[in-house]
C-alpha cells in the first residue's frame, strides 16, 4: 500500500514536470535562438540546446532593420490611453449603478448585461465602416475608441462598490460631501484592488490585441507589436533571419512576463475572477 502510494506520487511529479517543460521550452527556445548568431543558427542541422557564444547582434538587428521601437512605442501609447480612458468611462458608470437612484436604472442595467453576450465579431464589421467613414483609419483615435468600454468591468466594479456600507455614504452626505468627491476620496481608494485587477487585465488585452489593429491600420507608423511581428514575419529581415525574428519576439514578450512576475498573485486572482481566453 505504501509503495503504491509512493509510485503514484512519483508519477504525479513526472506528469507535472513534463507539462512544465512543454510550457517553458518554447520560451527557452526563443531566448536561445535570439542569442545565436545568424551563421551558427543556419549551420546547425541538428539545433544545439545551448550556446557558449551568446551574441546580442540580433537585438541590434531587430531594432535597426525593422521598426520594432516604433511598434513598441505605439503599443505603449495605445495601452496607456485605452486603459486610462476606459477607467474614466467605467468608474462613473459603476458608481451610478451602485450608488445613485434613478428612473429606468434596472432596465438600463439589464440592457448593459445583455450587451455582454454580443461577440466582438458581430460588431466589428460596422465599427470598421464607422471608423473608416470618420476618416480615423491609421490614427490612434481609430485604434482606441472602440475598445474603451467594457460592460464586464462595469459589472465587476459595481459589485465591488455595492459592498461598501451605505452608512458611509449617508455620513458623507450629512457632512455635505459631493457625490464626485465621495467617489474619488472614499469609493475608489476602498476598491483599489479591484481597479488594479481591471487595469492589469486590460493591459494584457491591449498588449496582445491583433484583430482590430490589423483591420484599422495599414500604415506601419501605427502598427502595434502583434501586427509588427506579423509584418516582420512576412517582409522583415530579408533572408529568413530567424535569430533576429526571435530577438524581436523576446523583446515583445518581455514586458508582459515582467508584469506577470511582479503582479503574479494579482493577475492569477484577477483572471480567475474575470478573465476569459480560449
Amino acid at each position, binding site marked *: 500500500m505504501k509503495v503504491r502510494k509512493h509510485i503514484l506520487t512519483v508519477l504525479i511529479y513526472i506528469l507535472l514536470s513534463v507539462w512544465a517543460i512543454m510550457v517553458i521550452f518554447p520560451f527557452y527556445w526563443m531566448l536561445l535562438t535570439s542569442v545565436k548568431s545568424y551563421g551558427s543558427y543556419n549551420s546547425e*542541422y541538428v539545433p544545439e540546446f545551448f550556446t557558449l557564444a551568446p551574441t546580442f547582434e540580433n537585438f541590434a538587428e531587430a531594432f535597426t532593420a525593422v521598426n520594432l521601437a516604433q511598434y513598441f512605442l505605439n503599443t505603449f501609447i495605445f495601452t496607456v490611453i485605452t486603459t486610462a480612458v476606459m477607467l474614466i468611462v467605467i468608474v462613473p458608470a459603476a458608481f451610478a449603478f451602485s450608488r445613485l437612484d*434613478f428612473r429606468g436604472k434596472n432596465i438600463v442595467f439589464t440592457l448593459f448585461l445583455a450587451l455582454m453576450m454580443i461577440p466582438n465579431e*458581430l460588431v466589428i*464589421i460596422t*465599427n470598421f465602416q464607422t471608423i473608416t467613414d470618420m476618416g480615423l483609419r491609421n490614427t490612434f483615435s481609430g485604434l482606441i475608441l472602440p475598445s474603451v468600454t467594457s460592460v464586464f468591468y462595469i459589472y465587476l466594479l459595481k459589485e465591488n462598490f455595492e459592498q461598501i456600507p451605505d452608512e458611509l455614504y449617508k455620513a458623507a452626505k450629512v457632512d455635505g460631501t459631493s457625490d464626485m468627491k465621495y467617489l474619488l476620496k472614499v469609493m475608489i481608494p476602498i476598491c483599489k484592488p479591484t481597479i488594479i485587477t481591471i487595469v492589469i487585465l486590460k493591459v494584457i488585452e491591449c498588449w496582445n490585441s*491583433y484583430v482590430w489593429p490589423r483591420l484599422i491600420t495599414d500604415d506601419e507608423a501605427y502598427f502595434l507589436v502583434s501586427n509588427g511581428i506579423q509584418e516582420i514575419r512576412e517582409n522583415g529581415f530579408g533572408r529568413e533571419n530567424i535569430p533576429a525574428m526571435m530577438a*524581436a*519576439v523576446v523583446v515583445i514578450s518581455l514586458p508582459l*512576463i515582467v508584469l506577470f512576475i511582479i503582479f503574479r498573485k494579482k493577475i492569477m486572482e484577477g483572471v480567475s475572477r474575470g478573465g476569459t481566453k480560449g
Partner: protein
Amino acid sequence: MKKNSFKAWLYLLPAIIFLGVFMLYPLIDVFVYSFEEGYNSASQTYFGTGTYNYEYVLHDPYFMQALRNTFILVIITVPLSTGFALLISLALNSIKKLRMAFQTIYFLPYVTNTLAVGLVFMILFKKTAYSDGLVNILINMFGGESVDFIDGPYWAKMFVLCFYTIWIVLPFKVLILTSALASVSDTYYKAARIDGTSRWRMFTKITLPMISPMIFYLVITGFIGAFKAYSDSVALFGTDLNAAGMNTIVGYIYDMLYGDSGGYPSYASAAAIILFVIVLTITVINLMISKKKVHY
C-alpha cells in the same frame, strides 16, 4: 429625486455613448448589411434586399473549408484541453511541494502575445532548407519520417494548430479548476475516508459533482472561444490562411471585410451572423445538458 436622476444619467453618459456607437448600432447594422445585396462600400449603394449574401457565403468553398477547419478544431481541442486541465489540476491538488512553482509556470502562456509565441512554434515545427526543425529531428530519432508541419499535409497542419491552441487555453482552465478543487471542503473527504471509500469512488461521487459547475463553465466558454479561433492560426500559417487551407470562420469574416479578397462587408456580415447562430445553438445545447447533469 429629479435632480439626482439627471446626475445619474450624466455619470452614465460616456458609457452609453460608447456602447451605443460601438455596440448597439453595429449590432443592428450587421443584420441590415447581411440582407443588402450587392452593397458597394465606396458608393454606399446596394441593389436590393434578400438572402443572396447568405447563399453566396454558404456556397463559397473557402467558407466551407473555414467551417470544416473550425469544427475539427472545436471537436478536438475542447474535450482534450478540458480533460487535460482536469488531470493537471488533480495532480496539482494532490501535491504540496513545488505546487506554487508549477502553478506559476503553467500560467505563463496566458500572458504571452499569441502572435509572437506562435512564431516560436512555427520554427520548432517548420521544415526548412537548413534544418528539418527540432520536432522533426525528434521524430527521426524515434524512427519516423520528417513531415512539414507548416506547409505540409493537412493533418500535420491541423495537429500543430490544435496543439498550439491547447497550449494557449490550458492556463485559464488549470487556474479555474485548481481553485475549484481547492474549494471543495475537506470534511467530505474525511467522512468518506472513515467509511473506507475508495479513491476512484471519492473522485466520481464527491470531487466531480462538486466541481461540475466549473467544468461546465469551462466547456461552454471553451466552445465559444474555439469557435472564434483565428489569431492562433495566423500566428502559425501567416495572414493568407485561404492559401494555406487553414482558415477559420472568423478569419473568413475578416478576409471578406479587408485584405486582398476584402471589400465585401455584406458577405462578412452574413458569415458573422452564421457564426453567431452556430455559437448560440451550441451554447443553448450545452446549457440544457448542464441543467440535467450539474449539481449545484
